[in-house]
């Protein structure tokens, strides 16, 4: 049961070693830097040190209570990440698969629009553009 923010890459296999001991179901989600336009070189992720760790920890604790999780982990990177690099991961462990899937989905919806990260796309030409929040992410949060 932990949340981390780091610039370094993470190793999914290492994160899962010993994770969720005794649980019947483990779900993991990994977000990867995507290039929708064919013009992007990298993503730069800014965050609010202090608040970010606190928010991720609060959302993880909330998910654990709501979905009766045996374990959870959130790792989110910041700084400059090239296209194809992993950005973040969520892992949830529960007795049964449905709770593990739902908890991972719930955490992703909260991280998308309530964790203090801001993405900026860096083009191959060096131009930078802040990514706008999507109203669909806000709608997704309302499901819970």
């Amino acid at each position, binding site marked *: 049961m932990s949340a981390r923010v780091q610039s370094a890459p993470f190793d999914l296999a290492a994160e899962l070693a010993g994770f969720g001991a005794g649980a019947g179901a483990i779900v993991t989600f990994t977000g990867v830097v995507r290039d929708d336009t064919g013009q992007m070189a990298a993503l730069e992720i*800014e965050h*609010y040190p202090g*608040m970010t760790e*606190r928010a991720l920890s609060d959302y993880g604790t909330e998910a654990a209570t709501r979905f009766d999780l045996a374990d959870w982990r959130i790792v989110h990177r910041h700084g400059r990440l090239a296209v194809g690099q992993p950005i973040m991961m969520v892992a949830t462990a529960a007795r049964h698969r449905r709770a593990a899937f739902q908890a991972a989905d719930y955490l992703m919806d909260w991280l*998308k*629009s309530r964790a203090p990260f801001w993405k900026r796309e860096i083009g191959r030409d060096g131009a930078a553009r802040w*990514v706008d*929040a999507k109203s669909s992410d806000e709608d997704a949060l309302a499901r819970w």
Partner: protein
Amino acid sequence: MTLDVLYFAWLRERIGQPRERVDTDAATVRDLIADLAARDDWHAAAFADLAAIRCAVDQQLADLDAPLAGAREVAFFPPMTGG
């Protein structure tokens, strides 16, 4: 009251600094924004569209009518884009 005011993403860029210490009598976040926007053109531009601004008081998400009594740190930023 003295507050540490923090800015992130394009708010930081428009204002030209990541943080500043502010002496204010503002009772709410909205009052603080009015104080800040009156400082200079950069602040005024950053706070021109309140619908595009989110805030946190002492590192907890808050709305613009949140009271500032006892607060030490207020942060302003655009809607978050994590995950």
